[in-house]
C-alpha cells in the first residue's frame, strides 16, 4: 500500500474546537484510533494511566495530553498538532483548548486550518463558547465548518434533540455570515459516525465524519486568486566553479496565492518594474508553472534589483502599496498593547516598524458588542488602524490570507504579541 499507487488527495489541515467537556479530546482520540494512527505501545500507556485514574474504559482523551504541567492539571494549555492519514489523504489536526482565556490559542490554531470542527454537547446545545468559536472561525477565515453534535449517546440518540440544535445553530450562522456549514450527530465515546456509522444513528443518512474530511476541498479557496510571490532569499552563486552560474539570479520563495507560468508578465514591488518570468526552477528542474503553496525559484527576463522583502506579483493584479492599514488584531501577549510604543510588523517576508494610530473599538466576542478602549489585553480582539514606517504590499485578508495577515513583534523582547488581519488599505 505504498502511497504512490493510490490516489493522493493531498493534505487537509483542520481545527477542532469545543467547550471544556464536550468531548473534543475524545473525538481526536477516536479519529486517531479508528484510522489506526495509534499504535499498541501508546495504547498500553494510556490504558495504564486510565486505570491509575480509576477509569474502567480506556480514556481516548489521554492521547492528546501533551506536557507534564497540563497532565498534572488535567487541562490543555496550548495548541497541539496531531497527524493521521487515510492512505489517500494526510491530515494535520490543530487541537485548541476551549477555555475562555485562550482565544489566542484558537486564533493561532485557526490561522493554518482550512476546516473547523465545532463540537456541541447534545445535552447542552448552542452555548456562549459555541458562538465564540464560530465567530473566531469566521474571523480567521476558515472556509469550511462542520458542526458535530456530540454525546448523542447521552440523549438516547434522539433525532428531535439533534434537529433542534441544528436549527438553533443555523440561525446563528446566518447572523454572523458563516456560509459553508455541515452538521453531523456523533458519539465520539462509542465511535458512532466517526469512521464507522454505528447502529444507533440510523435516522441520519449523511456522510460520516471521515467521509466529510475526505471530501472537503484541500485548497483554501476555490476562487481564482492573484499571483503573489514574496521573495525570501536571493540566490547569486557568482563564486561557483561553474561559469554558467556567474550571471544566475534566482528569486526564491513560495507562491502564496494564485499561480504562475513561464512567460507570464510580473511586476516587482516596491520598484514597480515589469518583466516576464523566464524560468521556474526547483532543484535543477524547470517547471512549466507553479501553483499555490509551491516553493520554487523564479528567474526573470530582465535584470532587476530584488531583495528579500520584495514581492513579485501578477502585472494584471497589483496589490496596494500602503503605509497605513486598518485591521482586526488579536492581542496575544500578557503585556498589554501600548499605543505609545513601536512594534515590528511582519507581513509576508517583509518587516517594518508600526505604531497604532487609533483603536476603533474592541469586540466582545461573546456578545459581538463594540466597546471603546485605549489598550488591549491578552485575548482581546479589536479593530484598529496602524501607521507603518515603510510600505507593505497587501491585500484584504478576505481576498488573500497570506498577503492580508501579519504579526506584531515586541521590539525589546522579540516576542510575537499580536496577530492581524487587514480589513482595509485606504484607512
Amino acid at each position: 500500500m505504498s502511497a504512490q499507487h493510490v490516489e493522493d488527495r493531498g493534505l487537509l489541515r483542520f481545527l477542532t474546537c469545543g467547550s471544556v467537556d464536550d468531548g473534543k479530546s475524545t473525538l481526536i482520540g477516536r479519529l486517531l484510533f479508528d484510522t489506526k494512527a495509534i499504535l499498541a505501545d501508546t495504547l498500553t500507556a494510556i490504558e495504564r494511566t486510565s486505570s491509575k485514574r480509576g477509569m474502567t474504559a480506556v480514556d481516548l482523551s489521554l492521547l492528546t495530553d501533551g506536557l507534564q504541567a497540563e497532565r498534572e492539571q488535567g487541562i490543555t494549555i496550548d495548541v497541539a498538532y496531531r497527524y493521521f492519514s487515510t492512505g489517500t489523504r494526510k491530515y494535520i489536526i490543530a487541537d485548541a483548548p476551549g477555555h475562555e482565556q485562550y482565544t489566542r490559542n484558537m486564533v493561532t490554531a485557526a490561522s493554518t486550518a482550512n476546516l473547523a470542527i465545532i463540537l456541541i454537547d447534545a445535552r447542552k446545545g448552542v452555548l456562549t463558547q459555541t458562538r465564540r468559536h464560530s465567530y473566531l472561525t469566521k474571523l480567521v477565515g476558515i472556509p469550511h465548518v462542520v458542526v458535530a453534535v456530540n454525546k448523542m449517546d447521552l440523549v438516547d440518540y434522539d433525532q428531535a434533540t439533534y434537529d433542534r440544535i441544528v436549527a438553533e445553530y443555523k440561525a446563528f450562522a446566518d447572523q454572523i455570515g458563516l456560509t459553508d456549514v455541515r452538521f453531523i450527530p456523533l458519539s465520539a465515546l462509542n465511535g458512532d459516525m466517526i469512521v464507522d456509522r454505528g447502529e444507533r444513528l440510523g435516522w441520519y443518512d449523511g456522510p460520516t465524519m471521515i467521509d466529510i474530511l475526505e471530501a472537503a476541498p484541500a485548497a483554501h479557496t476555490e476562487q481564482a486568486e492573484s499571483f503573489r510571490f514574496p521573495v525570501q532569499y536571493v540566490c547569486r552563486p557568482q563564486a561557483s566553479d561553474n561559469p554558467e552560474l556567474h550571471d544566475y539570479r534566482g528569486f526564491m520563495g513560495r507562491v502564496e496565492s494564485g499561480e504562475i507560468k513561464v512567460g507570464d508578465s510580473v511586476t516587482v514591488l516596491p520598484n514597480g518594474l515589469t518583466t516576464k518570468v523566464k524560468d521556474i526552477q526547483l532543484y535543477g528542474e524547470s517547471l512549466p508553472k507553479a501553483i499555490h503553496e509551491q516553493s520554487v525559484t523564479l528567474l526573470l527576463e530582465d535584470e532587476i534589483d530584488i531583495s528579500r522583502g520584495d514581492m513579485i506579483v501578477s502585472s494584471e493584479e497589483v496589490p496596494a502599496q500602503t503605509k497605513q492599514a486598518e485591521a482586526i488584531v488579536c492581542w496575544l501577549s500578557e503585556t498589554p498593547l501600548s499605543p505609545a510604543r513601536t512594534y515590528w510588523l511582519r507581513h509576508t517576508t517583509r518587516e517594518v516598524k508600526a505604531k497604532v494610530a487609533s483603536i476603533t473599538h474592541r469586540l466582545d466576542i461573546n456578545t459581538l458588542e463594540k466597546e471603546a478602549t485605549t489598550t488591549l489585553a491578552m485575548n482581546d480582539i479589536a479593530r484598529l488602524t496602524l501607521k507603518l514606517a515603510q510600505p507593505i504590499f497587501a491585500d484584504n485578508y478576505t481576498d488573500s490570507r497570506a498577503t492580508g495577515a501579519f504579526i506584531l513583534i515586541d521590539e525589546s523582547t522579540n516576542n510575537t504579541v499580536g496577530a492581524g488581519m487587514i480589513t482595509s488599505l485606504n484607512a
Partner: protein
Amino acid sequence: MSTLTKQTLSHLDWLESEAIHIMREVAGQCSNPVLLFSGGKDSICMLRLAEKAFRPGKFPFPLMHIDTGHNYKEVVAFRDKRAAELGERLIVRSVEDSMKRGTVVLKNENESRNKHQSVTLLEAIEEFGFDACIGGARRDEEKARAKERIMSFRDEFGQWDPKNQRPELWNLYNARSHKGENIRAFPISNWTEMDVWQYIEREKLELPSIYFAHTRPVVMRSGAIVPVNVPLMNGELTNLPKAGEEIIDLQVRFRTVGDISCTAPVESDADNVEKIVLETATTTITERGATRLDDQTSEASMEQRKKEGYF
C-alpha cells in the same frame, strides 16, 4: 461544501514545500544558522530539502554533528561521505571533548552519553556564535514535541520553556533573537515517520546500511533487542553483553539511529525502502517506543531533556 477541486499539491509535495519555505526563512532571518546533520534518516531528508531550497547556490549554513563517540560506524562514515559529496562544510564536535574539559561528567563508564549531547551542543553554539540550529525533529515522534513550535525559542542557557513560546500564526515565523539566545528550527515538524520513508523512497535517497535488515549479535534485555559487541570507528567494541546473557544472531533493522547505548533495532526482514514503507504502514509499535531505550525511563523524560537544552 462544493466538490470543485482546484489543483493542489500532493501531501509529500506540500510537506516538502513547507520545509523549503522554513529553511529559506531561517536563512533570510538569521545571521549565523547551522544545520544539524547526524547521518540519520531524518537529517538525510533535511539535506535533500536544503538542496531543493538553495541549489544551485551553496547552503547558507554549515552542517554540524554532535558526536557522542558511541555512534554506529556505518552512520559516521555515511555522514562524512554525504557532506563531502555535497561539498558543504561539516563541523564535528564531540561529547568526549566535553568530557576532557570536565563539562560532561558521566555517572559511570556505561552511562548513556545521549543526554550529554546537550552540553556539547551548547558549547558549540557558543563557540561559533550560532543564532539558529536547524534540526530534523518531528512532532509525531513523542508527546512533548506535539506542541513544539516550528521556530522554537531557547534562552541563553539553551533552555526550552514550554510556557514561554512564541505563538506561531499562518506561515509568519519569528526567528528574532538577542545575542546569546537562539532559535531551534524544525522544518519537518509536520512529517510523520511514514512521510519520511515515503520521501526517501520518492527521492531515492541513500541511507546508512543499518537502516536495512541485516544480521547482528544481540541480547534480549527487559523486552528490548540490545545490540552487543558493536565495533566503534577506532575498532574497539562497545555494548558488551552482561554476564549470563545469551547472544543470538538476529535479523534486524534500525528505525531510529542515535547513540549506540540507547538505540535498539527491531526484528525485520525489510532490506529495501519499499519493504520498509510497507512495514511502517502495518507496524503496531511507535518509532521511539520500540527503539529508544532512553525515552522509556519516564513518560515525561523527553520534556525534561528538552528543558535542559536537548533538541
